């Protein structure tokens, strides 16, 4: 990377690591939530649906502030980690993860929920008559058929986490190599009026993200219409 400093490079790697982990975690927890939302008939699922989207409404640094309180020594989360003997979450990569996962949750849940609803029950029924357990059917039928929605969910979650700034700053404390992700680094460059460095890093960030997302898209199977035909 001829025109990137070590610090810049480090922040870039950190960003992609964070975005990758957040996306992976979101796939694990967002998918069941979306599934539940798509299939439950509880009247209050609308509330859950809207609640999932709520963190978005707060300015990120304010959300970060509230999270910092919650994760701090007096906060409920902070007490929990203390009791469990886990290292405190603020100013650590783990803290960034938790906060980013919370913040990006709606980007994962909502597209998936729609896709699951649109898919309907028939493909699962067909799979069941072909001896596939529900879990089996999920991986071998639902997943491939709703792949475009997963793609969207992954794209949005990933991109959004890469660009996240306010929450990450508040929780992470901008520690080089630990929580100083590329978005913080670019911001610092801009604030310090180092526009050339900012531009270079921003360009690299865009490029990398572009490549990562393109890679995801390139694995997209042929277009399909419905679950079954």
């Amino acid at each position, binding site marked *: 990377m001829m025109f990137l400093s070590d610090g810049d490079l480090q922040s870039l790697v950190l960003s992609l690591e964070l975005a990758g982990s957040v996306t992976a975690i979101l796939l694990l927890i967002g998918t069941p939530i979306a599934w539940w939302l798509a299939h439950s008939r509880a009247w209050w699922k609308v509330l859950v649906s809207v609640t999932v989207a709520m963190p978005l409404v707060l300015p990120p640094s304010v959300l970060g502030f509230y999270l910092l309180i919650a994760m701090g020594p007096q906060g409920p989360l902070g007490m929990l980690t203390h009791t469990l003997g886990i290292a405190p979450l603020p100013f650590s990569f783990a803290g960034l993860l938790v906060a980013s996962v919370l913040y990006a949750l709606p980007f994962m849940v909502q597209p998936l929920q729609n896709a699951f609803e649109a898919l309907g029950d028939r493909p699962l029924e067909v799979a069941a008559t*072909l001896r596939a357990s529900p879990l089996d059917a999920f991986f071998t039928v639902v997943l491939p058929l709703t792949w475009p929605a997963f793609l969207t969910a992954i794209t949005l979650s990933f991109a959004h986490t890469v660009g996240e700034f306010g929450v990450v700053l508040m929780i992470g404390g901008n520690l080089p190599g630990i929580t100083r992700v590329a978005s913080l680094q670019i911001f610092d460059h801009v604030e310090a009026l180092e526009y050339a460095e900012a531009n270079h890093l921003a360009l690299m960030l865009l490029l990398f993200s572009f490549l990562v997302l393109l890679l995801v898209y390139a694995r997209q199977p*042929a277009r399909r*219409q419905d679950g079954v035909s």
Partner: protein
Amino acid sequence: MSDIVARFRLDRSGFQLDVDLVLPGRGVTAFFGTSGSGKTTLLRCIAGLERAPEGLLSVLGEVWQDQSTWLAPYRRPLGYVFQEASLFAHLSVMGNLQYGVKRTKSGQLTHFEHIVDLLGIAHLLQRQPQGLSGGERQRVAIARALLINPKILLMDEPLAALDVQRKQDIFPYLERLRDELAIPVLYVSHDHHEVARLADHLVVMEAGQVISNRPMSVAMAQPDQRFQRDEDIGAIIDGQVGAIDMPWHLARMDFPGGGLWMRDHDLPVGKKVRLLILARDVSLARHPPEQSSIQNSLQGHITAILDDTHPGLALVQVRVGTSLLLARLTKRAATALGLQMGESIWVQVKSVALI
């Protein structure tokens, strides 16, 4: 204990399924009934796709559902052919066929080629479902269900989208399935021809209820308009191949009461067969015919004169040996012939079909 016992009650807005059935544990049971009578719903209950709260279901001695038991659909060893297309859009035809096979313990593919050929889909294996025509899709769906060696096969109007030729091609396999593998087949159909050819047992449904549940031969001999088009009323008779007339490509089917010549089907002498003799193909005469193209004449006794579906028509039941045949004729002709119960009469059979 090797029967199928099914008791379901299911409430829907504007529709209620309420059945209590005992079905034979082998052979083909046809479900017949008007559109919306609940045939699909019943099949779904049996497959476990619909959960009727107080239901009871035991198949060949195994309880799949009762107060304390609920076997998940994927644990029920059945094959299901859906009424509408149901191929997985993300898999090729091959992928669709293998989907179930991979998940079946005895996942052997010995009969793979056989079934694929039979359904005429060998040239489609690499295609995607989207590009297939309606009939092609349904053929793949049937093959997919057959390939998993189910203990019971549920088919919801599987042939509705197939052309006559394809139907004819598939029938023999379904028949062999019934005869050789002895797995029961529950078969929903609108097509009386299909039912007459395939079924051993007939369930007629109406408005969510079973209005008739009896062996096919019984159902056939007692004409019922709800089930039969009037052209399709006839008698089913068991017999065997008695003789073959090679030069004329004819075979004589013998049954208690006589023999009937029909076109040869390459069956060996002694082979047991089931014959369908439509009432419309049977005429009555006082005397044995001479120099008519009708070759099949038998002597019998009139056992009943029944009303037919049209006021101008009558159905005459004639016992030939121990078999009952049905003849349709106009009331005017019946009167002209002066038919009387118990009388001796000549039966002329214009056409016989193997079923």
